[in-house]
């Protein structure tokens, strides 16, 4: 039960920070990173539910007419499970690759939607491209650093660890 509260707080803070930075025009894939962490550390079903709920909240707070974010954060879950099951996860630095992918998923689709919904123009295209690159870079930096910080916190609090997720994979099945 305590771990559920921890997951709720983690997601709440990530949503709040993403909205906070977003209001200054900075697209940082914090929720995507949090959903990835939850999916790997706890399980993909919790990650899926968390992603859909967080996406709905973010779209609601931003006042978007179409709810994209739920689908985007849900798409982070298969990426997390693929990386956990088929790729080496012991190296924290290697997490920069899925981190960049999360940035790409979260901002790329939104940038595409912006082009489709608001009409194509080169101005929007280059702005979206710059936002995509920034989000990928931010994701590449954020995922490894978040894993380090959150695992250190979880270890002190006695919760499940991201670092031990691969070892617990057979139990989950």
């Amino acid at each position, binding site marked *: 039960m305590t771990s559920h509260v921890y997951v709720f707080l983690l997601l709440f803070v990530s*949503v*709040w920070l993403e*909205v*906070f*930075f*977003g*209001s200054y*025009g*900075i*697209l940082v894939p914090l929720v995507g990173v949090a959903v990835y962490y939850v999916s790997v550390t706890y*399980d993909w*079903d*919790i990650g*899926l*539910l968390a*992603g*859909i*709920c967080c996406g*709905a*909240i973010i779209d*609601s*707070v*931003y*006042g*978007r*007419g179409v*709810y994209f974010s*739920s*689908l985007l954060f*849900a798409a982070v879950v298969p990426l997390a499970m693929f990386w956990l099951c088929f790729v080496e996860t012991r190296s924290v630095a290697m997490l920069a690759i899925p981190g960049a992918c999360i940035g790409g998923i979260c*901002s790329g689709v*939104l*940038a595409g*939607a*912006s082009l489709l*919904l*608001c*009409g*194509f*123009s*080169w*101005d*929007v295209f280059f702005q979206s491209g710059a*936002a995509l690159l920034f989000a990928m870079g931010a994701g590449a930096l954020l995922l490894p650093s978040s894993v380090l910080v959150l695992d250190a916190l979880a270890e002190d609090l006695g919760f499940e660890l991201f670092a031990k997720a691969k070892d617990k994979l057979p139990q*989950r099945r």
Partner: protein
Amino acid sequence: MLHYPDQKRNRKFFLVGVALMLLAALTVVQAFRRATSRIASDFFYPFVRVSGFAEDALSNKSLLLEKKLSLAAALEKLQKENSRLLAQTAALEILHKENSELRNLMKIAQPSAAWNCIFAEVLVRDPVFWEENFTINKGSESGLVPGALVLACVADADNATPLPVVAGRLSSVSKHSAVVSTVISKDCVLSVRVPASGASGIMQGGVRDGGRCKVSVRYLPRSLLYEPGQYLYTSGLSRWTPPGIRVGTLYGDKTVEGVFQDNLHWELKMEPAVKLDDLHFVMVMVAQ
């Protein structure tokens, strides 16, 4: 506590089922989407407002760092501006009375709507749809209703005085906040007129191009003449919209930019007067 062998699998089915149902409901059921939007906006309102409080506190404290002389000069300037606005209001009051008397003499009905002006601050902006919509820090509790006109002040190019221009309309309202669809959003439909040509049209949706916004104005009569730079104002045909508020100017280099629509009407491009890049405060006009 009892442990069933398939408890874990059941939990998975349950969570995935809930997640998929949520996703389906959000995609398909508009009422559910609206309810989610209201709940999420009101729940997050105090947390989103935190940054605004911090900014206000910082700017208030930074005032203390200003020199006494510069503060006194700013105060004097504001007092002068206040006096000028008071004089203007008094003159308008006289005109209003005259107008009412003349309407009575000519037996013309008095205008039905009076307007309540509510000032609000921009609370949240979407980094993806930066110029299409934003959220303000006032909601139904302050008297806002969906569809109300939102104005912003810009410096008038002609005489450098602040001029209220149309920024957009309220597309949804929750208890403490409201979402504004700006003039370039497809959700903002507005009846406009071009006094210089005597034409009326419907404004809806625009694009950003080369750092400028271009908004489509449809159903403009084909027989009339249009020139770039002609001002567009709200027509006031709807009871939600006051008339005579500047919306923008017709776009074009030597001739107006646009196309024929069904061989009957012009669809011209308009450059909105509002500067959407840098918007902090707005005024909402609600019909009483």
